């Protein structure tokens, strides 16, 4: 048997046949991997509980002809328990998993930065000390940045003129100065732009210092930006409880 081992986060599970599941992982070394978990829906399965969404595991695969097979799984961090016990966090976390799955486009192509970002974000979400919706928005922006779609919330996205600027265009890649602005650009409040910049930078003290009433507008900008860069919209985003 050709075995390999990796660390991974479970992104999604789908029922397969009578008692199996197809499990989509984001792994540390091999990127996105789909593998079969045999018998994991049986309540006697020795590792079914470790192969649930959000779980951070040390996993061993056996190469198969079409799909690889999970042969071992040990828990590294049981994020699932903390996340499923809080509905708002569960919906925010699900949107993270779906985003990671979509932004890591090719199977088996290493995506270490996306992996580290996801593990970090799930840890914060499961910890419950920060607002789940903010954690999600920060993850979405940073995940887009890692995928090569970093927005600019400071200088002008077109000409680079130093900010702050007033217009935002997803298509143009961020904030635009007075002379670069395009028709139909949004004009978010200055505080919203500060919040967005802090979320992209992972600067929590600044993000949490912005009045919470600007969070909703920031989420709207993030959603619009994400939408622009994904072919199909995320299914889970509309279900996120803000």
């Amino acid at each position, binding site marked *: 048997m050709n075995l390999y081992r990796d660390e991974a986060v479970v992104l999604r599970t789908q029922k397969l046949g009578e008692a199996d599941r197809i499990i989509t992982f984001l792994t540390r070394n091999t990127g996105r991997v789909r593998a079969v978990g045999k018998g*994991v829906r049986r*309540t006697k*399965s020795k590792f079914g509980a470790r192969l649930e969404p959000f779980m951070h595991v040390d996993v061993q695969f056996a190469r198969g002809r079409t799909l690889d097979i999970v042969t071992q799984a040990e828990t590294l961090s049981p994020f*699932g328990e903390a996340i*499923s016990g809080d509905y708002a966090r*569960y919906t925010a976390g699900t*949107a993270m998993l779906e985003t990671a799955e979509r932004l890591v486009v090719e199977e088996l192509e290493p995506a270490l930065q996306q992996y580290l970002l996801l593990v970090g974000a799930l840890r914060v979400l499961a910890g419950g000390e920060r607002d789940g919706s903010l954690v999600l928005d920060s993850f979405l922006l940073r995940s887009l940045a890692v995928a090569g779609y970093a927005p600019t919330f400071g200088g002008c996205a077109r000409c680079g003129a130093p900010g702050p600027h007033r217009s935002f265009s997803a298509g143009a890649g961020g904030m635009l100065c007075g002379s670069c602005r395009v028709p139909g650009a949004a004009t978010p409040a200055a505080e919203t732009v500060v919040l967005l910049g802090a979320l992209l930078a992972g600067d929590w003290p600044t993000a949490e210092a912005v009045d919470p009433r600007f969070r909703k507008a920031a989420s709207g900008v993030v959603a619009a930006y994400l939408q622009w860069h994904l072919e199909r919209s995320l*299914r889970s985003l509309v*279900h*996120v409880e803000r």
Partner: protein
Amino acid sequence: MVQDLIDELGRLPGVGPKSAQRIAFHLLSTDPTDVRRLAGVLMEVKDRVRFCVTCGNVAEEEQCRICRDPRRDLTVLCVVEESKDVIAIERTREFRGRYHVLGGAISPIEGIGPDELRIRELMQRLADDTVTEVILATDPNLEGEATATYLTRMLRPLGLRVTRLASGLPVGGDLEYADEVTLGRAFEGRRSVDD
């Protein structure tokens, strides 16, 4: 036309675009009588089998066998994901109340939120004071837990007893695969959900 077929098949659970295409081309090359038989079975199932207007369980009449049974305890309601979970729990002979079948679990990644399940119907059933205890018997896996978390939050303000099956049911599995003894014990040892 062929694309319509592929699109329809692609809407089935667990069928991705590639499989949909493969099934479609398989059907195109299949003997017409076989296809007609498949279409016939699909229509017959749709005509004959329906869902209980009260609890959502599969039924061959307007109400299912359990809802029609006058000996069942009206004060206890057991919430499950699927009709096959009703069968699993009935096998334990531990439960004498009635059921409410949600039609699945909350799974945002599959586009299933609370509105896609029979949660509104559940709240309507609880509007009068007949039911005094709701047992949350969603699957002991992540989506089942998250669904129970959501329901707990909806039900707590109603002032009735909300219970969850006792742990001992290994996390990760489907309720339908729990053996009678384990499931029966989980019912006996159910605990109030309190925060």
